[in-house]
């Protein structure tokens, strides 16, 4: 046995497989605590990488293991091959970088997910039904300004304003209301009814403030958007018609439900035909070629 051979034959071939094996074992341990699928995945990883590791070891030393009397050149060649791929220092550097990267990812990804993912799954987008009181409070053919807290737990920050008009009955004899949300569909400022407000007739019905107003149009103070009595844009920068509420009538009370966006309204009052879309942000087109710029509905608006 030459000096060279003795130096080389006990050196295990550098290999990345043990790292994968270790990840698999870690995954098994975590899986034992929290979930069966993780356990299975960990077992598969550990088995695959363990097999590859053992196979590499078998390949690296077949000559020394099987035939001690074989030509002395064989192990040296094996060592040279391995050295060409990855030497010990490079392997250790790569392993350190890799493990640090794994630890870094393990810390960063959950935090990033916590910070960003809620916005993409629609957390905090749920709407609450609001009871506006008996429909007899809404005189036919006149707009009422209804101010309410959408979520009383959140306090003033959830104060919203709706413009409600009783349209009487449809041809089918069903009660009809126009329920418009005051948020301007240009950039979200509060739209105001253009007409005298009857402060004397102010009512307070279970936390909702009702004010009659003689309005045939709505205007936005921020950038001059102007809407007609059905909420269609008549002037200024808005890109669609004013958003509306779904509504229902329960025990004679008017209940405001989910918000939806409106492309355009044909006709007036009880006979109007409303092009209804999922709730969209102000300034976002819901119809026409420009709507292609917003292919994905806002999370939480569709559910």
């Amino acid at each position, binding site marked *: 046995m030459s000096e060279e051979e003795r130096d080389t034959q006990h050196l295990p071939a550098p290999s990345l497989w043990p790292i994968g094996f270790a990840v698999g074992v870690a995954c098994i341990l975590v899986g034992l605590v929290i979930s069966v699928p993780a356990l299975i995945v960990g077992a598969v990883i550990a088995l695959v990488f363990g097999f590859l590791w053992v196979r590499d070891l078998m390949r690296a030393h077949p000559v020394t293991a099987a035939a001690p009397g074989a030509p002395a050149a064989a192990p040296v060649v094996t060592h040279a091959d391995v050295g060409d791929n990855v030497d010990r220092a490079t392997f250790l550097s790569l392993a350190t970088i890799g493990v640090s990267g794994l630890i870094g990812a393990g810390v960063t990804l959950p935090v990033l997910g916590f910070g960003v993912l809620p*916005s993409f799954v629609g957390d905090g*987008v749920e709407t609450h039904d609001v009871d506006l009181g008996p429909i007899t409070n809404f005189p036919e053919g006149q707009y009422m300004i209804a101010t309410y807290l959408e979520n009383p737990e959140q306090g003033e*920050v959830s104060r919203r304003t709706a413009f409600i008009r009783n349209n009487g009955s449809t041809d089918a004899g069903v009660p009809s209301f126009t329920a418009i949300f005051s948020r301007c569909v240009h*950039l979200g400022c509060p739209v105001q009814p253009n007409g005298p407000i009857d402060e004397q007739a102010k009512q307070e019905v279970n936390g909702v403030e009702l004010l009659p107003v003689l309005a045939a149009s709505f205007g936005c103070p*921020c950038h001059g958007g102007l809407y007609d009595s059905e909420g269609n844009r008549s002037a200024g920068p808005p890109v669609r018609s004013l958003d509306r509420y779904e509504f229902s009538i329960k025990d004679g009370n008017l209940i405001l439900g989910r918000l939806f966006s409106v492309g355009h309204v044909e006709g007036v009052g009880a006979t109007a035909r409303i092009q209804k879309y999922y*709730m*969209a*942000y102000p*300034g976002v087109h819901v119809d026409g070629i420009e709507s292609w710029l917003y292919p994905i509905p*806002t999370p939480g608006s569709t559910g």
Partner: protein
Amino acid sequence: MAATARRQQLQDVALAPLDWVEERSGLVGYTKWFLFRKVPRDITWSQTLGSAALTAFIVQATTGVFLAMFYKPDPVNAYASIQSITEDVTLGWLVRGMHKWGASVFIILMFFHMARAFLFGAYKYPRELNWILGVLLLVSGMAEGFTGYLLPWDNTSYWATVVGININATGPFVGPFLAQFLQGGLSIGPDTLPKFYALHMLVLPGAIMALIGLHLYLVVRLGVSSPPWSRSAAGRERPEAAAGRDGVGEPTTEGESA
């Protein structure tokens, strides 16, 4: 003679602590090396706009730290806490005023600094990367302004932020998601204010400090560029100046071949 010796003695006593630090850290030497660098002989006051912007940022950071001790970032208490800082806290009006007006000063100085770099051609090779870092600093500074504007939680800041967020929402493809990230829902809600506060006092200042570090590293490494009218460029005499000509913009053939 005795007076000189006494003076020397005093100087040694005064410098002893600095020598102690220098011997153990080398920090005094590094600081001198950082502060007393060679610059072109014909630089002007306009080259100090970057330092001015840095000073404005330091003022913002310092006053911001102390405002944060009294500010309450939730919808119920925010407005009242701002009122209390302005009316009740000793010198609170001054610190808040410095932070409020300093914000505009910071942005304005960054623009002047950028104009100087542009007009002097200081963005050219090898300083392109520093221009890019400067643009990132400008964007981060503007984001600081946007997030800070909401914090007083009065009607101006509320509706300005509504409009600002909805402008973000009109961005193609990602706009609605960006708006939803910023306000945590379909409209400004109770989560919006703490989120803006965290961005304003942790995320963005951290980014700005890191970017300033890189920006200054490149300034030290690459040196200050000469003004366009300089007779010496990058520490060397211009060829046309060497040939005894007036120089700027004049074509030279001898200079180039030399």
